[in-house]
């Protein structure tokens, strides 16, 4: 305790004793309050300082363009991209499944036909058992037809495995839907917070910066807004070719 503060406290204490001895209750209570205040004052000052700091931090948070951009543009954009991943994997899986569905009956027909021919050939062989050249040919054909049946089975097992592998689309899709839901929640909370502390939203850049462009924006997502304003959107290879042609390529 500093010397001057010590003196003040001593004076206050002596004042308290004097007031008590003089039975002056008002003076005594006033003195007591003054002493108590000397203890609580620094605490109130500290609370005030912390409150200011929190307020300043929140203001910085709210006026940080990066955060506004994140909540208003980049998170919805990320959601669109994830949804598009689900669509792409769904298309790929369905294409594979369609091809498997086409191939399956082809394998079945090959195997059926081989089996029937084998039976017919066995009957012919019985009728012409003494015709050695014919029997040799039939033996060769029968071996081949047997291998067709075996390989048909291998083919069908492979096709079933290819079909089952498409299960990844369901599983990965479910995981992505969860991430999308998480992003939605996070985005809502962030927007709510930003609105509360700083109701006016910051100006958004209209187009991606040169830096962002050179980093690469990733595959184009149909219906995604944020970067759509960047000049003319390119839709397909024809657009790319047209653009290059217009540049003299």
């Amino acid at each position, binding site marked *: 305790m500093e010397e001057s503060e010590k003196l003040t406290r001593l004076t206050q204490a002596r004042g308290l004793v004097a007031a008590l001895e003089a039975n002056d209750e008002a003076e005594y209570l006033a003195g007591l309050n003054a002493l108590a205040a000397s203890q609580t004052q620094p605490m109130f000052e500290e609370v005030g300082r912390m409150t200011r700091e929190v307020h300043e931090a929140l203001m910085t948070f709210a006026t940080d363009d990066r955060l506004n951009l994140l909540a208003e543009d980049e998170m919805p954009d990320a959601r669109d991209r994830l949804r598009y991943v689900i669509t792409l994997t*769904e298309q790929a*899986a369905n294409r594979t499944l369609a091809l498997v*569905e086409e191939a399956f009956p082809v394998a079945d027909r090959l195997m059926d036909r081989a089996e029937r021919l084998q039976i017919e050939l066995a009957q012919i062989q019985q009728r012409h058992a003494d015709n050695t050249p014919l029997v040799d040919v039939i033996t060769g054909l029968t071996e081949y037809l047997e291998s067709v049946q075996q390989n048909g089975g291998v083919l069908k097992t492979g096709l079933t495995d290819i*079909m089952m592998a498409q*299960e990844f*689309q*369901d*599983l990965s899709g479910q995981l992505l839907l969860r991430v999308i839901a998480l992003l939605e929640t996070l985005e809502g909370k962030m927007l709510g917070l930003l609105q509360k502390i700083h109701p006016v939203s910051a100006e958004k850049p209209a187009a991606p910066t040169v830096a962002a462009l050179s980093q690469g924006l990733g595959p184009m997502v149909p219906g995604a807004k944020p970067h759509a304003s960047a000049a003319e959107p390119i839709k397909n290879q024809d657009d790319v070719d047209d653009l290059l042609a217009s540049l003299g390529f």
Partner: protein
Amino acid sequence: MDRNMKILVVDDFSTMRRIIKNLLKELGFTNIEEADDGATALPMLKQGHFEFLVTDWNMPGMTGIDLLKAVRADPALAHLPVLMVTAEAKREQIIMAAQAGVNGYVVKPFNGPTLKEKIDKIFERVQG
């Protein structure tokens, strides 16, 4: 087991419906219909004389577990055999499904032989 029995396959992912349908076809079942969640499936079940239900768990709208409960609560459907094919694999969930009256439970990722085994088991018990 009647290979012509009417089967309803419920899953929100069309890819998975297609896979299950193909596997069932391989097993000889041809009378298969589809729904993409419980809310679509339930009215179909109530009208359609289905003899077997294959359902996912996690679907928007009405989940598979709620569909199962609704089926068991409906006197007309209470005895319908139900096979759950789902990625939900928590112990508590499997117990929950069992308590709700599921007849079989296949965890994704799965394969054809597993599906066949569970279906055979269900109909052995139902008919036995």
